[in-house]
């Protein structure tokens, strides 16, 4: 059971990361109150868990890293948060993120960028950069993040922590501020597979408030296996291109050797439509976002911005000034691809491609493969400012992660080594609703992989 004061002290000490949006005073009093009220019988009793700021909480504000929700106090909380509290966890503040979860570096927050826990000149990844940085700095055992295109796994890889994206429909989205409704899932960052998986288990399960959440019991956690005998692990060749960073490749090769040593059968497979995944994602996600963000109009919540002589003026001033450049860009692209004359050329094509990408996974899993292993990111954490001028360069950091969101399958990133002192993650991709198999392999690999050794 964590002492509320000790937890608060550790979080306040990591202020330099700019990872936490909750002011220290409010955090301390909230933690003290929660610690007093927490149920001792809960499986997460006393565990402090921070929550990404695009997930609604009754404690603290919910800004989604945006000016358009500055100071907004949600009158309801996300189901995942309710479940955490029912299990005795302490909600340890709200974490900084790319605005409305749009970004891969947490440089697109209206509240300043988040700093990498090991190198202050670098980004922690995004959009769940605040959550990843806090866990990576040892300030917390776990934090909630969200995934739309890799926003939990990519920062997990950069910050040297575990990041899990569940199957779409495993965790309720009620209270997760929508970005791409057919892609979004709440995910977990944790200092170990066990910490992340425990939290995932608690927040998973049926919810009548989310019609896309499957009617299933919460995830049952597997035990740590003795060996991976009987597991067939596929290495999709499209994720190991010739131009892959040699150090990243070395780290992956080492992890694959360890998987073989553990008894798994490893074979090369192909996911032929992988090259189309990033463009497909960057049609579907902005399209859905343009619709999901239409509700931010200054009418019912959030601040109002100057310049509203009439209704249209209110809308345009609020949205023009309240949204940052990346969000505005995606809304414009999304509106464009959905508009008359372009719907078939872009959106419909992307939906068809998505079906082919999902079919690629089914084909591989139907042929006796249990899991896939790939690098999580093509490189370790890049420098702040490095990719800001070119949106496409930024989008390419999602190249190995977006496929799992498009196909709706679960995936986990765990640290597998260091590249010039910076952490790098390896990813296991599992079959829909078979997180337990994925976690078994992750547990086994975690025990043997030298995560802090140079590749």
């Amino acid at each position: 059971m964590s002492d509320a004061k000790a937890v608060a002290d550790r979080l306040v000490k990591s202020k330099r990361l700019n990872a936490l949006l909750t002011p220290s005073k409010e955090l301390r009093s909230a933690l003290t109150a929660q610690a007093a009220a927490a149920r001792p019988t809960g499986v997460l009793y006393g565990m402090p868990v921070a929550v990404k700021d695009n997930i609604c909480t009754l404690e603290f504000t919910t800004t989604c890293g945006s000016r358009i929700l500055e100071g907004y106090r949600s009158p309801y909380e996300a189901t995942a948060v309710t479940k955490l509290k029912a299990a005795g966890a302490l909600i340890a503040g709200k974490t900084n993120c790319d605005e409305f979860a749009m970004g891969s570096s947490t440089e697109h927050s209206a509240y300043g960028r988040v700093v990498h826990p090991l190198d202050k000149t670098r980004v922690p990844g995004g959009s769940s950069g605040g959550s990843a940085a806090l866990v990576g700095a040892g300030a917390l055992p776990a934090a909630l993040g969200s995934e739309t295109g890799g926003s939990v796994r990519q920062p997990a890889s950069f910050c040297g922590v575990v990041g899990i994206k569940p199957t779409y429909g495993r965790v309720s989205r009620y209270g997760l501020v929508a970005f791409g409704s057919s892609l979004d899932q709440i995910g977990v960052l944790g200092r170990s597979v066990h910490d992340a998986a425990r939290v995932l288990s608690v927040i998973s399960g049926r919810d009548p408030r989310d019609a896309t959440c499957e009617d299933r019991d919460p995830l049952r956690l597997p035990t740590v296996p003795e060996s991976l005998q009987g597991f067939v692990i596929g290495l999709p060749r499209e994720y190991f291109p010739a131009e892959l960073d040699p150090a990243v490749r070395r780290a992956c090769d080492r992890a694959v050797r360890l998987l073989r040593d553990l008894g798994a059968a490893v074979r090369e497979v192909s996911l032929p439509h992988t090259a189309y995944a990033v463009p497909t994602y960057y049609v579907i996600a902005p399209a859905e976002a343009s619709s999901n963000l239409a509700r931010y109009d200054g009418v019912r919540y959030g601040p109002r911005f100057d310049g509203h002589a009439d209704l249209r003026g209110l809308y345009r001033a609020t949205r023009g000034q309240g949204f940052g450049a990346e969000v505005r860009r995606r809304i414009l692209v999304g509106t464009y691809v959905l508009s008359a004359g372009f719907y078939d050329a872009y959106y419909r094509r992307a939906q068809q491609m998505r079906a082919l990408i999902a079919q690629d996974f089914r084909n591989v899993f139907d042929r006796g493969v249990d899991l896939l292993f790939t690098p999580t990111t093509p490189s370790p954490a890049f420098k702040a400012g490095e990719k800001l001028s070119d949106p496409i360069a930024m989008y390419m950091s999602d190249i190995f992660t977006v496929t799992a969101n498009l196909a709706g399958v679960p995936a986990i990133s765990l640290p597998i080594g260091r590249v010039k002192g910076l952490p790098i993650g390896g990813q296991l991709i599992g079959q829909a609703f078979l997180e337990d198999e994925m976690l078994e392999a992750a547990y086994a690999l975690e025990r043997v992989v030298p995560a802090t050794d140079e590749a």
Partner: protein
Amino acid sequence: MSVSRDDVLRIAQLAELDVEEDALPDVAEQMSRILDYVAQLSAMPASTNGTVKTFVPGPDAIRFRPDEVAPWPLAFGPAAFAPAFKEGFFVVPKLGQFE
């Protein structure tokens, strides 16, 4: 696929977003680059038989809710979070005279 200044204005209007005059060329250029990039999807042949096979994850059929008056809870009402609220109503400026 070149996005013009006028295209940006038209789309911005649809999205009710102000784009500053001097930002227009940059926004147009960035949008063009992004749309050029995603246009590689058209390399894929179009579905010829008219039926588009698409995929969305999640349950196959929607699960319904029983017809009961049981709203999901609100810890406090709109008066507490609305930017402008009077006599129980949300208040907004009127639509302009000459739209």
